[in-house]
């Protein structure tokens, strides 16, 4: 019997992924929400929306550097948005091409595609964690599983588990 895995290295420097279909659905759904957030029209500098402010922070804290900040934003903001959208498209595409094997969805990612997955998992946690206003003291064990409000926290916790696995896989530890 093959040992279950979420992510594991292959010999070509890529990563094998194995998810339950329901897990893949959650990732796909989160990817769609992030894509909508990053659709054209997402505000420069992300002023106003705490999630966009978190994904696209200022470079300069010093208020006397407002001009440099604006120049820097003009220079990099579109590239930062494009990079995130490209990663989302990679995740979407690899999920769509996944093969069903014994009840699990399996994918083979190149090293670059695995980096895209890592970026999307992190962005998803940044977005969800910011919305939920999580703190370092967040105690998931103290949440009532019967409370429907806890569902997003469960997703947040699970994304962290997934990301931790992927980091360990990529770091080769």
């Amino acid at each position, binding site marked *: 019997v093959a040992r279950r895995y979420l992510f594991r290295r292959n010999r070509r420097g890529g990563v094998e992924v194995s998810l339950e279909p329901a897990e893949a659905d959650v990732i796909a759904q989160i990817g769609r929400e992030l894509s909508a957030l990053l659709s054209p029209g997402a505000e420069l500098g992300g002023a106003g929306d705490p999630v966009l402010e978190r994904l696209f922070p200022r*470079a300069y804290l010093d208020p006397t550097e407002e001009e440099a900040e604006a120049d*820097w934003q003009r220079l990099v903001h579109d590239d930062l948005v494009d*990079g995130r959208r490209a990663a989302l498209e990679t995740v979407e595409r690899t999920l769509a091409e996944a093969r069903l094997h014994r009840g699990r969805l399996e994918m083979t990612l190149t090293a670059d595609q695995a980096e895209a997955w890592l970026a999307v998992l*992190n962005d998803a946690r940044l977005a969800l964690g910011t919305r939920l206003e999580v703190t370092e003291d967040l105690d998931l064990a103290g949440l009532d599983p019967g409370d429907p409000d806890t569902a997003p926290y469960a997703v947040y916790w699970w994304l962290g588990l997934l990301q931790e696995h992927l*980091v360990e896989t990529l770091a080769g530890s």
Partner: protein
Amino acid sequence: MTPTTAPDKVDQPDIDEVVDPARPWVVIVWNDPINLMSYVVYVFQKLFGYSRQKATKLMLDVHHKGKAVVSSGNREQAEVDVSRLHAHGLWATMQRD
């Protein structure tokens, strides 16, 4: 071999630097409750080529002290590093040292 012009410049005094010393800029990563410790170490190693030990020490500084200087250089270099860190979801800013 193509000669480089760089060594010649070393002996020439840089007037601009004397009048207005190009103060180095530092790139700071701030603590946040979302980014995973393992991920932050991974990003420091990937972006800056730091050893696992150095990347871990920087991550722990961020975690325990609230922030850490992760790189320094001129303004342009710092801006590049900040944007790379932002692309990886880390909360980074830059300021004069």
